[in-house]
């Protein structure tokens, strides 16, 4: 018997939720991927930590632009898999490059150039 208990929200458990929480919903939620062990995400390694002694600099435009979305926004750490330290460095480098017009701020910049 599946219980529809709206108060049984364990969506913020962070790691793997208990199987009991899984059955308390009849519909998959946005976080279903986290609970569904079949699609367990592989460990994401920071592209800057692992082996790449690649320096993050506002001058490395070709390196930096890979971390922007098609609209010119900085990609989230979740998507890229960077570690906190490198994500911060990456973000400041991108912001500096934007100031110097080496990188765009918005999608419109990409379109009209």
């Amino acid at each position, binding site marked *: 018997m599946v219980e529809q208990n709206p108060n049984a929200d364990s969506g913020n458990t962070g790691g793997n939720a208990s199987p009991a929480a899984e059955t308390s919903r009849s519909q998959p939620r946005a976080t279903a991927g986290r609970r569904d062990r079949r699609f367990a995400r592989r460990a994401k390694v920071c592209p800057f930590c692992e082996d790449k002694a690649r320096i993050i600099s506002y001058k490395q435009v070709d390196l930096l632009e890979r971390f922007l979305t098609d609209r010119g926004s900085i990609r989230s750490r979740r998507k890229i898999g960077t570690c906190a330290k490198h994500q911060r460095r990456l973000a400041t480098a991108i912001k500096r490059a934007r100031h*110097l*017009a*080496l990188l765009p701020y918005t999608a419109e910049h*990409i379109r009209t*150039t």
Partner: protein
Amino acid sequence: MNQYELALVFSSELDEEGLVESVNKVTQWINDHSGTVQNVDNWGRRKLAYPIRKLREGYYVFIQAEMPPTAVKVMEENFNITEDVLRYLVLRTDE
């Protein structure tokens, strides 16, 4: 004395000579404030990611220099006045 990197974007309305003059003006300012210019990296003309003052291109010049910290403010004021300088960024490069 601290280590700095000056990233400058000059107006594409300058010709090659005008650019050299402007860069020399900047190095002169550095020397005037008892700084030493160590390296000048000129990327030349480059497309801007977005138009600045209606222009779509600019000259990119990077200068590494050692300067006293008091000089930084003066340099920035000068950059603000200079019309040829579209963008500037003064960075400290010692740890």
